[in-house]
């Protein structure tokens, strides 16, 4: 792992959070690889990828684009008023980076607000990045919530 590679991967994760915080959802979606996946396992950190266990969200690009286009179309009842989010990240920890693949661990707290209401979540991101068309792309973004299995109010954006 060269220092420059590590820095590039850390910057990628920070830039990703910034897009979400600025509600630039189409631009965020463009960071996903063609076969990319956004996954919020119901079992949180304890869930293995091979487990037959559900998820709060488990979406490929098709489903993610449904989510994003619905948000942007301005017709969703539950987005009157619209939600905003803030991700506060710990420095991304790059566990692997060989120029073609990278794995990154990033603890976060997350606030999603809508009108007078606000929810607060915490956990960590596990990114698996790949190179596609000469750039880093998200092969898997796994979001481990500390209280994944608890009863939640609506989570409308992207922890």
């Amino acid at each position, binding site marked *: 792992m060269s220092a420059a590679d590590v820095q590039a991967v850390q910057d990628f994760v920070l830039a990703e959070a910034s897009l979400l915080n600025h509600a630039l959802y189409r631009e965020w979606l463009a960071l996903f690889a063609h076969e990319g996946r956004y996954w919020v396992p119901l079992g949180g950190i304890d869930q293995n990828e091979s487990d037959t266990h559900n998820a709060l969200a488990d979406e490929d690009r*098709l489903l993610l684009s449904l*989510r994003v286009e619905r948000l942007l179309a301005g017709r969703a009842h539950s987005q009157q008023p619209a939600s905003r989010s803030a991700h506060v990240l710990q420095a991304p920890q790059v566990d692997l980076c060989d120029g073609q693949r990278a794995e990154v661990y990033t603890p976060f707290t997350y606030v999603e607000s809508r009108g007078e209401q606000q929810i607060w979540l915490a956990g960590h991101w596990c990114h698996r990045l790949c190179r596609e068309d000469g750039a880093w792309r998200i092969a898997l973004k796994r979001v481990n919530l500390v209280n994944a299995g608890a009863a939640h109010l609506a989570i409308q954006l992207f922890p």
Partner: protein
Amino acid sequence: MHRAESMSAELPNLPVHPLVQDDRVHRDLYTDADLFAQEQQRFFGRAWVFAGHGSQMPEVGDFITVSLSGQPILLLRDAPDRIQAFFNRCAHKGSQLYAQAQGHVGKMLRCPYHAWSYRLDGQALARPLKDGYVGTGLDASPNGQGLTRLPGVRVYREFVFVRLSPDGLDFDTYFGDALRAIDNMVERSPVGRLEVAGGVLRNTMACNWKMYLENINDSVHPVSAHESASSVARQMWQQQPSGAPMPMAMEQILPFANGYDFFDQMGARIHPQGHSLLGVNFSIHSAYAVLPEYQAALEAAWGVERTQEVLQRSPQNAVLYPSIALKGSPLSMRVIRPLAVDRTLVEAWSFRAVGAPDVLLERAMTYNRLVFSPMSVVAHDDVHLFESIQQGLQAQGQPWVSLHRNHVAGESAQSPADTNSANEWLMRNQYRAWAQAMSQPLASELA
């Protein structure tokens, strides 16, 4: 359409509860905290409420805990073919015996506070410093009698139902033919066995439980409420190359884009006591891909005719009022738990049909995730609207909620009956059962 004809104009239309009229209900049902407290006792106390599933406690000594009407309940398998339902409090000072959602007690139950212990059937077993109780009144008092059993428990094909009050109908009278919805789910397994699998998606929402239960039977709202999700899904799917295989998620979401006629013609059955079956003729679940080998396995187990019945019946929702809503395909169940007058817990459970292909569990998990998860774009619009109604009903200008659609005088005498699915009879039927229970004090109130 099989709308029932008006039987008689002479039937008396006297309300049994002042807040429930023949074709409308008062907003206090959704907003009044005192009424909620009374409802917990009179209505939920008398009801047979879903508490758990036998597959969660396969071995003797396995238990689950659940909160019902604010009361802690412990379900425990004390014999291979028997499940006990106790109030989850030590007979001594009231500590919950077990605080975790599920586990195994071993050969006896033991309170973590002072080590009072109990046999698996709840009888008092031992307590430390027993000499200190010699000559005291403990043995003769309820505190000395072991764990308190719930007044009613009934296990129907591994679905465990309980009744919190000694008052109320017996189980079979309470549910009647509405239980066929459970039969339909169970017989999707060629060995007749379901297992809870894949985890439970759990939601809280800031609304009264009735908004949620009404909506399960509301076949009119998808066109307007879910337009934002279904129209985008339809557009996106049209942009895919023709002939692309349809992913399971699309197969499940696209039917939400159907129009009013589809949702009205799926048909509904009204059962006594508030129960119902929506989607008697067809539903948004009817067009899922057929699995020939699986069908053959079911035919070998249940015969061709019964298999046809089971597989062709993919109801939108069967409501076993007031605690669960079932789908046969996908094998999904919602559990509705009132927490406060303006707060409700909704869980989405998935089932594995033992001996059936894995894809059935995958369909259940996928559907629950797409439609009933806290992150579901379909649920987001529903929950927003339920919470909006909770606020809207604070308005004092006009206190009634309309349930007039397709109302015919005298219909309440005709249950069970088949009708069109947009008929708000499905909701009126729920409130008639509610009003019956609410207008009658419990024996404990009269004592």
